[in-house]
């Protein structure tokens, strides 16, 4: 079985995003960029499935600027076998990303496609579900545990009330949640080796996908800033404050 892992290059999660003064977006110039953390979890899970003998090949895919190569090299250094970059300088919406991934899946015929549940920049939480819909395949979103058995995959999902387990017929789409695993760091020798692994570069036109936007962002602004309040001296003062709120 082959596993396809779409990975997105996003602002590093440790960076506090700054909104541009003209309201056109978030300032990404000279900001540290990394692989979306949920995608690291997806790559890790794919590697573990391969190590367990459940998968033979892992293909990482990214849709983004030339620099997204770095993100793909990270996936290769972690343990993916080869990579595909669909190069574009446009901001491609989840629906178009899903259409491109569908076309790639048609070529690659993966048994599993493992995505992050959300990208931490746009926080859409859509791409995996859209891809599953377009491919008419099942989806195991917000995965906490993934078990592959023959031609089915059992996914324990993190849901609002607790956990839910579903069984999906493969090919299937899985999106990762935080507790699925702890991604490994790439070792230096593996980073060196990753430089020699194959990385193909394509364009969205190669897949015949129209990436024209459906949504227009007319403005991006800072949320209202919360002011720090006061610090109280001791528990008695805190008790008085809490009582003043009328909750005790």
């Amino acid at each position, binding site marked *: 079985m082959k596993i396809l892992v779409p990975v997105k290059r996003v602002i590093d999660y440790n960076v506090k995003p700054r909104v541009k003064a003209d309201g056109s977006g978030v300032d990404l110039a000279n900001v540290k960029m990394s692989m979306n953390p949920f995608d690291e979890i997806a790559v890790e899970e794919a590697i573990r499935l391969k190590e367990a003998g459940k998968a033979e090949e892992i293909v990482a895919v990214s849709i983004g600027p030339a620099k997204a190569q770095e993100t793909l090299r990270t996936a290769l250094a972690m343990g993916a076998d080869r990579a595909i970059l669909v190069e574009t300088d446009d901001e491609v919406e989840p629906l178009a990303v899903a259409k491109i991934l569908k076309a790639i899946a048609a070529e690659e015929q993966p048994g599993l496609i493992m995505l992050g*549940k959300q990208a931490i920049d746009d926080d859409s939480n859509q791409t995996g579900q859209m891809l599953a819909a377009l491919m008419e395949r099942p989806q195991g979103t917000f995965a906490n545990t993934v078990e592959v058995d023959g031609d089915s995959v059992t996914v324990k999902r993190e849901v609002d009330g607790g*956990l839910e387990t579903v069984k999906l017929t493969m090919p299937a789409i899985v999106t990762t949640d*935080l507790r699925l695993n702890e991604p490994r760091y790439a070792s230096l020798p593996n980073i060196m080796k990753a430089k020699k692994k194959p990385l193909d570069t394509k364009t969205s036109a190669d897949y015949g996908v129209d990436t024209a936007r459906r949504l227009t962002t007319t403005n991006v602004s800072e949320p209202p800033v*919360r002011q720090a309040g006061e610090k109280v001296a001791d528990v008695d003062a805190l008790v008085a404050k809490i009582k003043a709120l009328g909750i005790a």
Partner: protein
Amino acid sequence: MKTLVLVEHDNASVKDATLATVTAAAAIGDVDLLVAGSNARGAAEEAAKIAGTGKVLLADDAAYEHQLAENVAPLVVGLMADYDAFVAPATTTGKNIAPRVAALLDVMQISDIMSVEGDRTFTRPIYAGNAIATVQSSDDKLVLTVRGTAFDKAEAEGGSATIEEVSGKGDSGLSQFVSQELAESERPELTSAGIIVSGGRALKDAETFEQYITPLADKLGAGIGASRAAVDAGYVPNDYQVGQTGKIVAPDVYFAIGISGAIQHLAGMKDSKTIIAINKDEDAPIFQVADIGLVGDLFKILPELTEKL
């Protein structure tokens, strides 16, 4: 515009998240409700009482019992011929189903809307709520998920919508429900609790979390939340996580205890009316958003606080 709202329910009754979603949909146009479930007449009857709605569509089929997206999405798509917008709560159920509907309709979904600015224009948070984008759709139909804390709840009583039975294709044969482990708790649900007491990594382990956080929460009749660090370390189950990638809450009072205040955590609670922080580090970022702060050791402070309240 005609909107169809996905009702969040457990077949017997309607979940609170539905109410804010109805308010958001009403700001766009007329509101009909969809209850997709199995033996779900109870939920449909409750939904019919929500104020300001037209009719309730009830799709009652064993295939919809657990609201598997593979089965529910085609049902919704079939119904959307009569509607301009599909509106779902941004719960795990809504997030699972809505994008599947959007893709089948060839529409770009707008996730997590916080306000309705016009017919096809909405605001939504990006970058963990560090920026608010105003987004306009050019699609024929709209597919939206709604951030519950951003809209008032519609009245749960007072409406008298008619219930109309509808049907879809039923089981897609793609997926199967196996089991669920739902937390049984007498506590208020996090997303609708008036008071939340949340604990972080500082609470050490499950036993200590229980020993220090629970008595305070009991005293206040509060819901219990946690940081990701506390959930990852196994102090509490995953559904306690508050934050960018957990639950978004906005209670009247939020207690952050032994939580540093990482942006991912703040994303989930900074719209709370009053934030109270207890942390031994006076420079912890949580104090930058807290209305009331107390610097000190929570293991000394909490027992005394619980006792004195």
